[in-house]
């Protein structure tokens, strides 16, 4: 009897959960409404079968419960009944399969007027490439990928010169225009997913896969990686901004092409030396940092990292949060640098600086910290040497008091919470795996030994 009640309650409960659950598909933002329709058809058919079979099950358990004065029927088989059930099931299955195959045919065949956009995945970031004025994407080869050529562009292919290279995790798409996403990976499998678009596809190194869609709603949507790609899989996020044509054109105008990237001159350290005089007041003549001024050491940090932070300060991406006391001091200082050339020059000079190793100010257990560092080392290097390909700065030799403050800021969303701060956002997720102060002290104690 209890079982009968339980079965009925489970059926009713399942239906109630289904109809009252606030958790359902996020509102659609692409042309793939047909997918939602297919889901609905399948839900109705399977829902009917679920209720019918289990209600009948509950009925049987109730009606034919054990009774000493009754014997069970003896019926080895019933061909007619079995045939009808088979035919009925086959019809139901066909009713679910047919719409599925029809929609899949749409998905496989890309419309001719779709514009191509390349999505390039790597551990644990997104980059994008657009074909530029000639409408053709230039040749690429994974073996050409390097610090100066993050997309692996072939220098000989003229079609590639005007390709727009978006070295950020944010892609913009024009509204109501079909787009064919060409998916490529540098290292391992990834999967490009925007839940609002419904479609997804793996990125496979060594080949180019595709998916297509027409965005139908403006807005900023999250891009998630949905194929396990290593330790920071869950932190591999990006954004797609769908906007009106005019806004899209404005965004496009700000992007630089492969030709532009090759033309950027190297920074001039001699010019940068003069600029650095201002910085030296706090950060020290040799970039050794000054705890009294809350100024971290700069010597040893890679130029690209300093350049990005300076730009973030200038654009209010870093140092704008009201709890970021010292960042707010730095922001106006960064504005002293007039343009990208000035930033390149000063970072070129900072890269020439050398300073004594930092002194330890924290007590922690390096042995326990070593275990915690495993997750960090995937990006920042086993010896804390940093990794430019992953945009991860050097940690070895940095002041521990500074890193402690930054970890605190990341954990509390004081740093890295800004939507434009791609890499900071990853650190927010990663820093949260350090649950308390002792964990941070242990970790930094280990970093001090590197």
């Amino acid at each position, binding site marked *: 009897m209890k079982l009968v009640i339980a079965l009925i309650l489970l059926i009713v409960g399942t239906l109630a959960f289904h109809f009252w659950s606030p958790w359902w598909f996020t509102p659609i933002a692409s042309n793939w409404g047909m997918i939602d329709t297919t889901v609905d058809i399948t839900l109705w058919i399977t829902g009917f079968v679920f209720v019918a079979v289990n209600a009948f099950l509950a009925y049987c358990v109730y009606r034919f419960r054990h009774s000493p004065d009754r014997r069970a029927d003896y019926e080895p088989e019933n061909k007619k009944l079995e045939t009808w059930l088979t035919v009925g099931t086959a019809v139901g299955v066909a009713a679910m399969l047919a719409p599925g*195959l029809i929609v*899949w045919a749409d998905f496989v065949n890309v419309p001719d007027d779709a514009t191509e956009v390349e999505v390039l995945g790597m551990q644990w970031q997104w980059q994008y490439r657009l074909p530029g004025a000639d409408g053709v994407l230039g040749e690429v080869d994974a073996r050409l990928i390097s610090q100066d050529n993050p997309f692996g562009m072939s220098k000989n292919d003229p079609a590639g010169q005007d390709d727009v290279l978006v070295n950020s995790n944010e892609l913009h798409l024009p509204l109501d225009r079909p787009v064919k996403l060409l998916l490529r990976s540098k*290292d391992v499998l990834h999967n490009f997913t925007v839940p609002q678009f419904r479609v997804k596809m793996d990125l496979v190194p060594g080949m180019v896969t595709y998916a297509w869609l027409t965005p139908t709603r403006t807005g900023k*949507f999250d891009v998630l990686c949905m194929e396990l790609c290593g330790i920071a899989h869950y932190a591999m996020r990006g954004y797609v901004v769908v906007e009106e044509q005019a806004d899209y054109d404005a965004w496009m105008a700000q992007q630089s092409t492969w030709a532009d990237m090759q033309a950027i001159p190297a920074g001039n350290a001699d010019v940068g030396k003069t600029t650095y005089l201002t910085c030296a007041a706090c950060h020290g003549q040799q970039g050794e940092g000054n705890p009294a001024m809350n100024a971290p050491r700069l010597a040893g940090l890679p130029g690209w990292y300093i350049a990005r932070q300076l730009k973030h300060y200038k654009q209010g991406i870093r140092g704008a949060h009201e709890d970021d006391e010292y960042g707010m001091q730095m922001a106006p200082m960064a504005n002293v640098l007039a343009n990208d050339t000035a930033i390149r020059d000063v970072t070129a000079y900072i890269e020439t600086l050398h300073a004594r190793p930092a002194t330890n100010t924290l007590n922690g257990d390096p042995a326990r910290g070593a275990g915690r560092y495993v997750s960090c080392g995937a990006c920042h290097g086993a010896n804390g040497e940093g990794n430019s390909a992953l945009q991860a700065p050097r940690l070895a030799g940095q002041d521990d008091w500074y890193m402690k403050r930054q970890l605190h800021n990341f954990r509390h969303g004081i740093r890295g919470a800004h939507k434009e701060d791609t890499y900071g956002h990853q650190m927010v997720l990663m820093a949260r795996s350090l649950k308390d102060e002792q964990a941070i002290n242990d970790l930094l104690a280990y970093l001090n030994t590197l």
Partner: protein
Amino acid sequence: MQHVALADRPDELHDPQTFITKYVWSQDHKVIAIQYGSTAIFVGLIALVLSGLMRLQLGFPDTFDFIDPNSYLQFVTMHGMIMVIYLLTALLLGGFGNYLIPLMCGARDMVFPFMNMLSYWVYLLSVIILLASFFVPGGPTGAGWTLYPPQAILDGTPGYDWGIILMLVSLAVFIVAFTMGGLNYVTTVLQARTHGMTLMRMPLSVWGIFVATILGILAFPALLVSAIMMLLDKTLHTSFFMPAVVSLGENLSYEGGSPILFQHLFWFFGHPEVYIVALPAFGMVSDVLSVHARKNIFGYRMMVWAIVIIGALSFVVWAHHMYVSGMHPAFGFFFATTTLIIAVPTAIKVYNWVLTLWRGNIHLTVPMLFAIGFIFTFTHGGLTGLFLGNVTIDLPLSDTYFVVAHFHMVMGVSPIMVLFAAIYHWFPLMTGKMFDERLGKWHFWCTFLGTYAIYLPMHYLGFLGVPRRYFAMGTTDFIPESAQSLNAGITVAALLVGLSQLIFLYNIFKTLRSGEKSPRNPWGAASLEWQTADVPPHHGNWGKELPQVHRWAYDYSVPGAAEDFIPQNHPVTEDEQTEGH
């Protein structure tokens, strides 16, 4: 291979005497079955603890200190691999296959008892190698149980060095063990059935285990092949599966390989693996339902055909795991069609289970509760499979929690319900003692309601688009805050279910120590395993003479018969012959 099975020699002198030959280096299929079973349950408990740790992180992120992104992925991987291979495959085939085949077919033992013993020890070796990976530098692999290259062997994945090598070696060793056991099971079924035991008189348990073993024998080589090739890619830098990649900024020497080729091999094994687990469960649950409903299994022939057809079809559906893997999208049409076709024989099995209860005389014993629970959870899990098998619906749902919920419902909860049904059903036969029924019922209610409370809501996280294998969700624009409380609820349910398994363990130990003696055939079952000379059966199973089979295994409530069941070795009476039913 030419040895006459020890147990087939006529005298009793060969009965093992010492503790070592009787319980350790035993060649008795029943002892080997219990060795297999207890080892499998032991590693299963480890995997259960790992899942508890994962759930703690997912339900209450930013709270626990002992789990970080690195160890989270290691737990995910080890949990999955242990549960699928080292628990379910080993327990269903190594455990129940070993125990039931000779008894149900009326044989004294497996045909090759020595090889059978070897199979267990090699299996134990594979478990030791697997568990050793917890203690090597870098820890076990965290590549997910699918072990997809390139990431499985590249820096940036936990245990990319020692961990993955040990995992692949352990799998290869397991396959050797499985093949040795599997050869025994199929040969015993084909060659050692007692007189009168035609193929169509075998209980469905034997059919399920038999077909599953053939699937395993043909499918595991695909895993072996991919494991060997990946080991070479890892250690000798060949490029079977490895294309040119830039791993964490470093250009590696690999070139030209195809990661998708690995996925094809893996799923060519992986999908039949689903049925390697499911078919024995289908078979055993059919027998449990029939015995406790006091009614023959409905549509026996259809049930056998369905097992065979499902087994055959399971080799042509593998790429439904790969709809969004980047393989040629045209494959989607073919594989979606075959996948949905397989739903038809599966549905027939469900109908026939329910129709077995129809007009039965249902005893709601503990095994029966679990069997009915199985029908419910399997119906749910089977129906959600129709979403994922349909290529279009897979687009939004693949790699979300919908997938996790689906395969746990169909491959986790359902076989486990059958395993418990089977353990409770055959426990009196294995030990001669009757378990505590009250504890058994408590165990059922906690497990049945608890697992449904875990996995029903989890489907809705999937509809929402929450990705699987995420250490933490962080903030997104599409997941409401309430999803976190749902996750916390799931974690609480999971922990309760995990803890309630202690009831089961306590019941087992209590019964073994001080349980009541069970009647000879407490459920009144007609199949042959309950008709042995002694209960529990001794070495050699049948005393001096092998039993003679006169009827099928489902003569329950036969009209005109004195009792409501007629054992299989019961000779046909005059009345029956004239009636000719």
